């Protein structure tokens, strides 16, 4: 029988048909049942495969949630929104959880904290820590090799010019990878709504800290003093460092101002409002000057009226409610009007 060119067509075409059919058959025959919920959960997860949940990648988490090993809220980077979606797929209610962001608990740039010796070993925080506990004069401070930055799966961190890691709040998902990566426990997670945090991890007291870093916490307890933080949000812990109870909704900006070393960091420093006194309304009662925590911020002018020096105002808002003439108002950051009232 003569096939001619047909033989070529039949050969490749037939082969393709046969194999295609075989594969189609095999995909039915060897079909592996996967819970459809797994796929739907994978779809709503962030998909960064960061491993913050302790599972290998987002698919691992989805499988664990479906198998009941993990809660629907197990994905920290995804936050409450993702937890809700996952919960909806699983048909369970989800407790809303606090959204966290990472902060750098060290301000010891080379200007504040000098090096003890020059380190020329393997460039990395873990390696540098092994050599005499790091080259910084502060044995607890940030070494600035940026292992945390490398660990960040969301590109939310960078090394500042001051050799300290910076967190881009908007991108940070609170996955905690940087916290894990830091060999010196300098990165910490705080609630996204937190305004003030302690930017020092040195547990030593007064002189010892002063000797190595001029911006480190000396454990003076001024910030925890009820006079400065009446809400009781700040308590000293056994490491001679102030500890913040973020479940108390307070903005202890006065404590930041009172801190003699500047070791409390203000997360919303750029959004702080400035208060001012209306010249026409002020009758010179002077109540505001009595409550103002900042020396030289509110002063009496020669004509008896009071004035707030904008460059000194820390935006605490204590003066506004006490003014009998309602002459004090706020400039910038409108949200703070409520806070003050």
């Amino acid at each position, binding site marked *: 029988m003569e*096939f001619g060119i047909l033989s070529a067509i039949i*050969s490749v075409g037939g082969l393709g048909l046969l194999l295609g059919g*075989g*594969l189609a058959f*095999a*995909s039915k025959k060897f079909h*592996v049942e996967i819970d459809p919920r797994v796929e739907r959960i994978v779809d709503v997860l962030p998909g960064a495969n960061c491993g913050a949940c302790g599972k290998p990648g987002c698919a691992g988490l989805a499988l664990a949630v479906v198998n009941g090993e993990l809660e629907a809220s197990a994905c920290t980077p995804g936050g409450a929104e993702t937890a809700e979606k996952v919960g909806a797929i699983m048909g369970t209610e989800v407790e809303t959880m606090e959204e966290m962001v990472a902060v750098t608990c060290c301000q010891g740039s080379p200007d504040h904290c000098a090096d003890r010796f020059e380190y020329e070993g393997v460039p990395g925080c873990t390696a540098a820590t092994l050599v005499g506990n790091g080259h910084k004069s502060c044995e607890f401070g940030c070494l600035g090799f940026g292992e945390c930055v490398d660990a960040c799966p969301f590109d939310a961190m960078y090394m500042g010019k001051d050799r300290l890691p910076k967190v881009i709040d908007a991108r940070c998902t609170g996955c905690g990878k940087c916290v894990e990566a830091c060999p010196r426990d300098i990165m910490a997670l705080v609630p996204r709504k937190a305004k003030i945090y302690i930017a020092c991890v040195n547990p030593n007291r007064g002189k010892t800290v002063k000797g190595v870093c001029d911006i480190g916490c000396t454990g003076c307890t001024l910030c925890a003093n009820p006079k400065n933080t009446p809400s009781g949000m700040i308590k000293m812990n056994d490491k001679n460092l102030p500890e913040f109870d973020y479940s108390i909704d307070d903005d202890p900006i006065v404590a930041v101002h009172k801190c003699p070393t500047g070791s409390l960091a203000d997360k919303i420093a750029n959004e702080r409002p400035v208060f001012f006194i209306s010249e026409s309304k002020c009758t010179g009662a002077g109540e505001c000057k009595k409550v103002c925590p900042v020396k030289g911020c509110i002063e009496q002018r020669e004509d008896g009226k009071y004035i707030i020096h904008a460059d000194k105002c820390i935006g605490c808002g204590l003066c506004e409610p006490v003014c009998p003439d309602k002459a004090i108002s706020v400039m910038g950051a409108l949200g703070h009007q409520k806070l003050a009232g």
Partner: protein
Amino acid sequence: MDFSNLLVIVVGSILINNFVLARFLGICPYIGVSKKLDSAIGMGMAVIFVMTIASMASWIIYYYLLHPETNIWGGYDLTFLRTIAFILVIASLVQFVEMVIQKTAPALYNSLGIFLPLITTNCAVLGVAVLNIDENYTFIESIVNGIAAGVGFTLALVLMAGIRERLELANIPKALQGVPIAFIMAGLMAIAFLGFSGLKVG
């Protein structure tokens, strides 16, 4: 069956004509999957597996469908269809095997599964199929050559991964970090493997 002949094939494919370092086939996974030792081993196993299967399938296809003297068409020379037919068969066979092991051996699938689709139409896999034909190997010889080529590939990959894991800690000039230094490494390894070309076997 001449066993010394098979030995020559094995030594030849693993050392003398190593697929990566002497024939320069399969450079893509060689550079891409050689960052970590575990994944390099996984990839290597997958390649051995696929090359063996590909050698078998392509030999059968070539001699029963394409070769003018032995094919079922009786004399028509269809060898010009060799490349397209091999790709077709290897790709679908690997897909098929992937489905089967996913169903029957989930543990094996978890360790090999992600690498299988990566190498379905890899040039080293096609290369072993084509070389089997060019060398006029018998069916058994083809299978042995497939296994040996895979082992050779794995050897090169695992060596490379081991070196690259060490390189991670080395102080490399900035311009050479990452892939550039890996290429230099690959070149040095190829030179080293060239030493085997003086090896006399059989």
